[in-house]
């Protein structure tokens, strides 16, 4: 069930209403209902087979935690003092299970050259795996979830199930005992709706429309001029951010309507002055996970420059592989690792801030080409096109399918309008404005002011977004 559907909005309304009503009666009842709703969401999105694989993983984690923590019941929630006796063998076994499941479903095809492949991946498996690993790691370090009944929600919580944010146990479990869980305040309600509206608009009105331009460009690489290639590259950079951060905004908003706060996952990453800073602002929960669960255990930066560089490269190569089983993702991760090593060795403060920003943004743009490309050859072709001396303006076919009905409506009244340029310009202007806006939506939630202009603008944006969920699919008959 995609967030950008009427079905999801109906599901969300029913879930929030039902869980809050049940929670008002008894919090456990609300929790059970929320678990049931999350399970339903998982079944709708990935089918029962996804539920089976994920539930098995959750049971393995729960069993390992139970076995490992002998004094769990005696330890207060989020206690500063570690649990006395943690048998880490069980936790390690559970971690091996999770990594094995991830390897089988996601990487078997890649590592065997396609000889062995399951053919499907359980819904949200990559995020689920990292989240479970984080739980096991924190339990190994002495953390204990307050109640076993909270573990299913940690595994299946529907706003974060598909694409995160990856929840750190210490940030999630305590909230389930907080008085605001299932009893959100008026601030939470307003902020939650605000985030859902903003996130949906980012995803549907900006990211999806940028996707039209980007896909058109990638489908006709041979016909691109250099300016068009740059448009495609920049378009994908903006699309990816608006798509993923829009999703996270919706997830945060949905969680807030249930009285839960999700961690900030994006903090205006394209304003970064270095690649290192970029990773502190982009997919923050993944960076935190990799730092705490991989980089630090590898030794972090405490074992000399060479080892630090090797650790950074390892982390980013694995990050690339986690994003996708393919050479393009490895190259993308490797580039980011190498860039951070270069920054560390050369120093970050030598250049003026504007130049540092420009270099960082250009690097991030070029690296995303490998992230999006179907193969390395195609990535190099696009980059090569971008660097040629073919300065023809972008062709109008780049806008094919972009806001087509909005353009048709304009043409009814202004028949001579060059709508292709207008549409591309409008989408990029909107996307750049939102991407470089100093404050992100999740940050805005904490300082939300219920003003009239916000009401009007968000109402218009939300209505346009909902109306854009569905469209009349034009069938272009191949013979004509």
């Amino acid at each position, binding site marked *: 069930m995609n967030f950008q559907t*009427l079905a999801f909005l109906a599901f969300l309304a029913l879930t929030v209403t039902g869980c809050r009503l049940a929670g008002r009666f008894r919090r456990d009842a609300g929790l059970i209902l929320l678990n049931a709703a999350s399970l339903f969401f998982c079944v709708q999105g990935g089918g029962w087979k996804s539920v089976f694989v994920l539930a098995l993983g959750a049971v393995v984690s729960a069993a390992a935690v139970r076995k490992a923590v002998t004094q769990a019941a005696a330890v207060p929630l989020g206690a500063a003092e570690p649990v006395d006796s943690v048998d880490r063998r069980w936790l390690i076994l559970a971690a091996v299970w999770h990594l094995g499941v991830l390897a089988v479903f996601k990487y078997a095809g890649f590592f065997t050259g396609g000889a062995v492949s399951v053919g499907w991946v359980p819904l949200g498996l990559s995020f689920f795996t990292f989240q479970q690993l984080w739980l096991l790691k924190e339990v190994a370090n002495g953390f204990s979830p307050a109640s076993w009944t909270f573990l299913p929600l940690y595994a299946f919580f529907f706003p974060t199930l598909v694409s995160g944010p990856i929840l750190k146990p210490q940030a999630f479990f305590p909230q389930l005992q907080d008085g605001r869980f299932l009893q959100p*305040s*008026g*601030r939470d*309600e*307003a*902020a*939650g*709706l605000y985030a859902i*509206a903003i996130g949906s608009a980012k995803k549907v009105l900006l990211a999806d429309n940028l996707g039209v331009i980007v896909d058109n460009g990638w489908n006709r690489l041979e016909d691109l001029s250099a300016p068009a290639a740059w448009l495609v590259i920049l378009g994908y950079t903006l699309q990816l951010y608006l798509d993923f951060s829009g999703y996270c905004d919706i997830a945060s908003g949905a969680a807030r309507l249930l009285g839960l706060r999700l961690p900030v996952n994006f903090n205006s990453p394209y304003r970064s002055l270095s690649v290192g800073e970029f990773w502190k602002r982009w997919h923050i929960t993944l960076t935190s996970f990799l730092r705490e669960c991989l980089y630090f255990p590898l030794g972090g930066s405490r074992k000399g420059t060479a080892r630090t560089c090797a650790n950074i490269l390892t982390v980013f190569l694995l990050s690339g592989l986690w994003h996708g089983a393919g050479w393009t993702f490895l190259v993308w991760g490797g580039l980011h690792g190498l860039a951070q090593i270069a920054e560390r060795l050369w120093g970050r403060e030598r250049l003026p801030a504007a130049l540092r920003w420009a270099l960082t943004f250009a690097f991030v743009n070029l690296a995303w080409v490998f992230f999006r490309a179907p193969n390395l050859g195609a990535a190099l072709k696009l980059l090569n096109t971008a660097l040629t001396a073919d300065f023809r303006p972008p062709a109008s076919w780049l806008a094919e399918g972009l806001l087509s*009905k*909005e353009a*048709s*409506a304009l043409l*009814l009244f202004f028949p001579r309008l060059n709508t292709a340029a207008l549409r591309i310009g409008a989408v990029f202007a909107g996307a750049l404005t939102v991407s470089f806006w100093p404050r992100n939506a999740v940050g805005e939630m904490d300082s*939300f002011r*219920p003003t009239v202009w*916000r*009401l009007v603008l*968000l*109402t*218009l944006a*939300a*209505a*346009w977004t*909902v*109306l*854009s*969920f*569905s*469209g*009349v*699919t*034009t*069938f272009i*008959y*191949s*013979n004509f």
Partner: protein
Amino acid sequence: MDTFDKNCRRWARRFLAAVLALLALCAGIVYAIDPCLYYRMPENWKPVFFNERYQSAGMIKHIPAETVLMGTSMVANIRPSAAAEAFHSTALRITIPDGYFSEFDQAADLLFRAQDPKRLVFCLDMNTLIRDPSGVTGAMPACLYDRNPFNDAEYLLNKDTLYYSLYVLLANSWGGGQDLDESFLWNDGTVWERYEALRTYRRPDLSETVQPDDAFLANTDENLSVLTGWFQAHPDTEFIVYFAPYSILAWDRATRRGELDARFAALERACQTLTAFENASLYAPLFDREIVENLDNYCDYIHHSGEAGRLVLQKIAAGEHRITAQNYASVLSDWRQFVTSYDYLSIWDDDFFARWNAAHDAPPVWWGNP
């Protein structure tokens, strides 16, 4: 609860109310104008036909007809009035361009739920008969064909249908709008002549391999099962199935691609299957030399004009080219003999080259490999 919190809660409720009100307004406009004809045929303005898949559901529901002609783009230019004239009844034509059998099944399911047609005439398009039935165009709006009233929301809350609502009103105010008989026709803007059919035909290179006889049989069987399912489920309806009359160029194409044996095997399977039902009859204008050899009927290697389509229906109504369980083997054998011995190169005559050379600097691309 402090004042600020109360204000936030009030803001949240106003926001929800405003969004719902705006969406209700948009849905109301779409419902009232109903550009896809889903709820009713308009009485105060003429419909504007813009999308077959989106508007066929409404046409099926709201245009009662004794004869329903259904098919791919091969029926697109046959006016409903031509079907009415041929079968002496009221008629409706449903076109699903490049339609998959799963899409026709949705349309037929809705048809038999909405009305009780006396006759369903189905144009069996050879290219769609033999292709993978699991393919989908992604263009079929399931929400307009299924039984679930809740997903009508996808039609009502839809910026494209909102746009078309506006467009329908504007078109009518400008004197536009169309009659049902003109729905989805592209006959008038198309050149139907020998030169055009040859000009647009990309003659394939001669294939070095020949497709095995059973290459298309699995797909054919699965696709045919959709039709036989209709025959069995609706014994009181008369089903007339006819093979769409592709031009002689289609046989040249099949020959050069090494598909001739496989196509004939599929045709044979279709004949065996479709002639076994009492309430179904099969016709083969595909083998009508008067139509398929006259390239002035065509704009490309398969699509024929509305006038040719009218002739096809008249011949079917008169019982010409009927295929039965008794005659299909000899009919197929005769046609195989005809198309395998046909002198295809003679199609490209002097008149064609005179016109081609006047408009082009190079010969047709295939000419180096005749």
